[in-house]
């Protein structure tokens, strides 16, 4: 049966999923495979289709086309209550007419699991709320409600746990605590987690695999480190962290690298880090990979050098200094420097920016503002 009590998570497979609402298409054509026991994050801005994807998996929406498999079983046409899936809702959706304990025991009672109250109490202990078991959800704080919602889902040991921006309503400190707690619980129980969020830090911090979603499609998927190090599209480069992008026609192509020329500055990218090898290309670099120089440095062919430009703005964030440099013909470039207490760069200074060619990445597409 779909509702059997599973000890470990199951894998989830979406095959050619399409979801249309009257007037718009929320998901175009989604293929996704989440291996069992993985912490998987769907990351994207609001309206990108990530919550719809989650609701499709939970069975709260039916796909227009495509198939959905949980643990190898086709569940496309099953109802939500028949799926071995539980959700931690964004709004928590705790039942206001029941005690915290009864909320947690709800799923167990529906499946006629033996000793529901004992298991519910254990689940509350896991989230450290056993002492509030008799309270009503309305009497708890946001963070506590969130943990009750988590316990209510976890206690059923679902094959797949869905998290719909469950930390969205919490303040920063509580959020950090809950992130750590969630990750620890996932490791402990070994369930498959599908986490939907628009918070890129949260996704990178917690997930084994992150899929960046945009306009109903998955733009790129991979380990957080890989996604950050080598974004494939402009959207990923901008949504996941910050990026400086330089756009130009490829003017030089050697065996190992490509170069473009932007206003007299030669910018190179290794061929194996570029998504396309001809025509106009956007080459990017992360702000913390770039360095500032107050005089023109001597660079080898392993480095990119642009400038000089004027320092327009310096933002002090504690850990780092963030410089905004205006380079004629290129535009504004952001550079982060670790705050080691020895920065002498001041507003209005003329500076050069360098970075290793190996840190460049070449994107498959161009920003919307640039013509092909």
């Amino acid at each position: 049966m779909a509702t059997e009590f599973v000890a470990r998570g199951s894998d989830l497979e979406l095959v050619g999923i399409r979801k249309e609402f009257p007037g718009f298409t929320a998901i175009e054509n989604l293929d996704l495979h989440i291996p069992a026991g993985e912490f998987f994050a769907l990351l994207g801005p609001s309206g990108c289709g990530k919550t719809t994807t989650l609701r499709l998996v939970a069975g709260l929406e039916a796909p227009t086309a495509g198939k959905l498999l949980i643990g190898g079983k086709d569940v496309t046409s099953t109802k939500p209550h028949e799926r071995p899936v539980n959700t931690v809702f964004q709004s928590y959706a705790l039942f206001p007419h029941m005690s915290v304990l009864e909320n947690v025991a709800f799923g167990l009672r529906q499946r006629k699991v033996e000793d529901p109250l004992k298991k519910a109490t254990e689940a509350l202990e896991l989230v450290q709320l056993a002492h509030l078991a008799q309270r009503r959800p309305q009497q708890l704080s946001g963070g506590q409600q969130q943990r009750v919602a988590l316990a209510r889902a976890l206690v059923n040991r679902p094959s797949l746990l869905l998290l719909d921006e469950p930390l969205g309503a919490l303040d920063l400190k509580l959020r950090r605590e809950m992130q750590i707690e969630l990750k620890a619980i996932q490791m402990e129980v070994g369930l498959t987690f599908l986490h939907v969020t628009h918070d890129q830090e949260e996704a990178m911090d917690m997930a084994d695999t992150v899929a960046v979603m945009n306009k109903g499609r998955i733009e790129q998927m991979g380990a957080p480190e890989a996604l950050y190090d080598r974004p494939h599209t402009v959207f990923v480069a901008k949504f996941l962290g910050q990026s400086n992008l330089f756009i130009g026609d490829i003017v030089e192509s050697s065996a190992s690298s490509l170069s473009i020329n932007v206003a007299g500055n030669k910018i190179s990218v290794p061929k194996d880090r570029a998504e396309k090898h001809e025509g106009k290309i956007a080459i990017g670099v992360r702000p913390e990979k770039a360095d500032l120089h107050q005089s023109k440095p001597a660079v080898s062919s392993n480095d990119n050098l642009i400038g000089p430009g004027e320092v327009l703005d310096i933002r002090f964030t504690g850990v780092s200094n963030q410089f905004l440099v205006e380079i004629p013909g290129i535009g504004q470039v952001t550079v982060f420097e670790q705050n080691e207490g020895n920065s002498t760069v001041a507003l209005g200074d003329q500076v050069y920016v360098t970075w290793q060619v190996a840190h460049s990445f070449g994107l498959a597409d161009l920003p919307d503002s640039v013509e092909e």
Partner: protein
Amino acid sequence: MAFAAFSSGSKTDYKAPRKQSVIVAMSLLLPGMVYLALFFITPLMSLVVTSLEVPDASGEIGRYQYGFEIANYWTVIETYWPHIIRSFTYALVATILSLLISYPLAYFIGIRARKWPLIQKLALALVIAPFFISFLLRTFAWKQLFSNESWIVTTLQEWHILAPDQYLVGTDFMVIFGLTYNFIPFMTLPLYTSLERLDLRLLEAGSDLYATPAKVFRKVTLPITMPGIISGTLMTFIPIAGDYINASRDFLGSSDTQMIGNVVESNFLRINDYPAASALSVLLMAAILALVVFYVRRSGTEDLL
């Protein structure tokens, strides 16, 4: 800044506004208190006093003098207990029927029609629309529709649902039908209010937690909308128990369907037995009050409100 000003303000300037607020509160309460004293307490006292009066020494019909005749109560209970029981039975059946009809209706308007606000508003207007026609007229119209020569009755007789000498007007069925019909809006509106506020995400959470749609309804929708059910049933049961139009001979009833209201009416206006009519009224009021208190306690709604 704003918070600091707010919190310190409420502490240091504590006394002055409070004194003022007592005066304001009292003067705001005054009109209501006067109204209650004039139009509720006074008639109630007069009713209780009348219910204990004895016939005038002159023996003239319709003249009574002050007494303390508690036996009046025993007399009316003895004489009219079938009417009392009938009133509460009718009220119970009609309330249950209106609940069964109104809940799906309110569910449709409050939940299903949320996607189409225009249909929602239209449906709500249709629930209230009958109020624009006097309910005497509407009840009379039903009498015409179900009268002995009407096509409804003749058709039912042809189909052998009714015997050839059986009619509808004047039966228990007809009175309960009229009561249910007339009080459905009073049931639908409170139900609608509580269903309209129901967070549908709770229903999704229920189905996500393995509850079938029927279980979700029983375990989530029904308990959360219980305040609406309680107020709806009270708003129908109480007036129905005291109603006298539907059961009256002039409308849908007959001498076999008389309710307490009809008895009170005839005692007051036809037989001029004011003490009996008053005693019945007091009894009706006390019985309803006791039932309501018991009902609200049992259903445990104070918890939800």
